[in-house]
């Protein structure tokens, strides 16, 4: 198992609410049973629509760098919850809790594709909380 990476299988919750947090269906893109916790360093943050993205570098057992790209909420939703494009910076040490993409395919830049639900900085601050999974999950 890669260093700093843990994939757990969680029981799927039965949900039936409409997906209201995202412009797309969470369940069609991400697997709510493939939860992931990645500890690493922020490579870059894209404060873009329809979802902000956060790239995090981590290392596997051999020291090879693996980059994850996490979809977050939209900038307007993040802004209303008190965060800005400067809440998370390149070089920050973080732990990202989230979900893996269903198709298992990397983004075009080769990064592992996931959806974040919470990013915790090394000083304990929590940023970019929330995911389209919160409402749409697992139906």
């Amino acid at each position: 198992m890669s260093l700093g990476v843990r994939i757990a299988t969680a029981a799927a919750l039965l949900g039936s609410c409409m997906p209201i947090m995202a412009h797309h269906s969470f369940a069609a893109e991400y697997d709510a049973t493939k939860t992931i916790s990645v500890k690493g360093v922020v490579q870059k943050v894209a404060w873009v629509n329809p979802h902000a993205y956060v790239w995090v570098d981590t290392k596997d057992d051999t020291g090879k760098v693996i980059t994850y790209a996490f979809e977050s909420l939209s900038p307007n939703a993040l802004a209303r919850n008190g965060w800005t494009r400067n809440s998370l910076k390149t070089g920050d040490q973080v732990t990202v809790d989230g979900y893996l993409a269903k198709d298992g395919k990397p983004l075009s830049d080769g990064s592992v594709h996931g959806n974040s639900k919470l990013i915790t900085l090394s000083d304990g601050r929590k940023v970019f909380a929330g995911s389209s999974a919160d409402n749409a999950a697992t139906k």
Partner: protein
Amino acid sequence: MRYFSSIAAACATVALVSYLPLATKAQDKGGDKGGKFGPVGPGAAGQRKDNAPKGPTPKMPDGKPDFSGVWTPTNFTAMGQPSLQPWADALYKERRANLSKDDPEGNCLPAGVPRISPFPMKLVQTPILIVMLEEGNVHSYRQFFLDGRGHPKVVDQLWMGDSAAKWEGDTVVVDTIALNDKTWLNGQGLPHSDQLHVVERYQRPDLGHLSVDITLDDPKAFTKPHTFNRTYSLLTDWEIHEYVCNEFNVDAEHLVGK
């Protein structure tokens, strides 16, 4: 029926509750302060709850209600379940089985009428025109002309349709036709045809609330007209925010469904 009957109210509650506590917790930990599009810090997320200001309905100089303001929907599942023709029911089941992977909104296309997005909309009113500006819904706009012009004789099929409006007392009645059949009525994939006819009756019973009685009539897709009520609450310290959906929409190619 599973999605929209007895669980609708519970669903709405879950939706609101699940939106709120995460953000509140995060703010407790110190989210950044400042922001031009709305309040930040404690209480910001609470705007999602119905804590609209109290007071009488604002009036235009001519004494008609003034609907202007930034509004957020408060009951996302209000639409419920229309009675569908067999072809529409089959299509609906297929879209649900595919976990809504083909939702046009996932491709940053307009949501149509009367679907709502999770983001606020703004109404701007003049004596002869009300404009709806959508923050979500790829920044779509709708125009409700109150000058008696009615519908054009020939209209194209449009993503947001053609709306004719009129006053009935203190109610604005908006009649929308000419909708294409590409949009979904909700995120679950509820279908409609190009015969969809939407009548919305807008009322502002007090300062803080908007109430819209909506009738959907679609003889090709429904077995009978379907009526529901949607409510909004006024956001006094939020402004609508830029949301350019196609900026970095990497989702489309990864929407695989099951």
